[in-house]
């Protein structure tokens, strides 16, 4: 799902890093968001709706709509469309509202 060639843009990708999504090891680039890395790896479903458990993906990708909330390194309700991917991150689909300590 990555753009290989573009007439105007050059993508200066950061270094390749590894992270874990729902127990599965994946790769992404430094400097991109968690949602972008997941999408590039073919993952579209980022969460489940609260009551009907319907699949949820991102919608706005700029941190305005909360459609992309996931649990990251144990922290619930992280907006993955505006949070940078980091080496070794544990990213999980969140069930329910999530608990804040």
């Amino acid at each position: 799902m990555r753009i290989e060639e573009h007439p105007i843009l050059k993508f200066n990708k950061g270094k390749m890093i590894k992270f874990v999504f729902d127990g599965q090891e994946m790769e992404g680039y430094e400097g991109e968001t968690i949602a972008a890395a997941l999408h590039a790896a073919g993952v579209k479903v980022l969460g489940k709706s609260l009551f009907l458990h319907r699949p949820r993906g991102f919608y706005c990708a700029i941190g305005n709509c909360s459609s992309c909330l996931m649990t990251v390194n144990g922290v619930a309700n992280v907006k993955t469309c505006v949070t940078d991917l980091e080496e070794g991150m544990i990213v999980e689909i969140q069930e329910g509202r999530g608990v804040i300590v």
Partner: protein
Amino acid sequence: MKQAEIVIIGGGPAGLCAALSAAKSGSNVLIIDKNKNLGGQLIKQTHMFFGSEKQYASKRGIDIPEILIDELFKYKENVEIKTEATAVGMYEDGIITVLEKEDNYYKIEPKAVIVATGAYEKFLSFPNNDLPGIYGAGAVQTLMNVYGVKPGNKVLMVGAGNIGLIVSYQLMQAGVEVKAILDAAPKIGGYLVHASKIRRMGVPILTSHTVKEAIGNEFLEKVVISEVDEKFNRIKGTEMIFDVDVMCISVGLTPLNELLALRGCEMKYIPQLSGIVPVRNENYETTVENVFVAGDATGVEEASAAMVEGFLAGLCAAAKIGYKPDDFIDRKNDYIKQLNNLRSGPAGKHILAGIEQIGR
């Protein structure tokens, strides 16, 4: 408590120009943006701008923030920038609360504030509109142009305004197939230059068409559309099915300005300005003294107008707190003239009719 002369909330084109203008007049400015990068929506706009040279016409949107930030550097002793900092509250005693990164929460008491928070994308209701694969056109633009990731393989674009047309073109530049563009209106809303370019590339633009439903299990697989009559009712028997994995929703933006409502500014619903906007005077000052507004937050328009509004609001806010430059009147008149020029086309008529209703 942090003190500041002018706080600018939002570092998109409007906020950056406001900062530049106020700093040039001699005021201290503090820019707060919730994003990692300054530039707002510009950072994904790969197309060339219209307008005149003063609004950076024939530059690409993505190149403009750098020009503005370089310019801001000339006044660096007057400018402070906080990114990944969200203004979460604006209270009646004039205090602004900010959350920086995850856990740095503080208050600021400025002499004046300029709210330039932009706009957010509208949504459309139809069965299964929550399926992954249905994305805002702006989201797709961000994914492609900022991160170099394709949204999918086959796209149906809903909305033939400028954003819908431009994003369709950018999808094709990224090597993604655009099956069709549809719009419920009987006429294409965007500029003809953009529409002709799309048509030449063989993409049909279906006016008087709307989405009937989305189909899919875990994510979007198909979209059913149908024709509508002049009252926007669906016409039975005109259904068409598209096999697509992405549907982009581009049915307009609506101003993002809850902070102003929270602060107690008088707000009004103005359809021509795409939503609820603050009542303001010609200096872009709201009904609350020393609270200014600029850009899409004051009515959805274009980046060029947002920039000029920013320059004007920055100039007037600085003057209001004691930094009135000798050429104040000349600068103010120049900005007003630029705005009038930008609003002289057919779309401008609409905007002007809206602005008439929020003057004070």
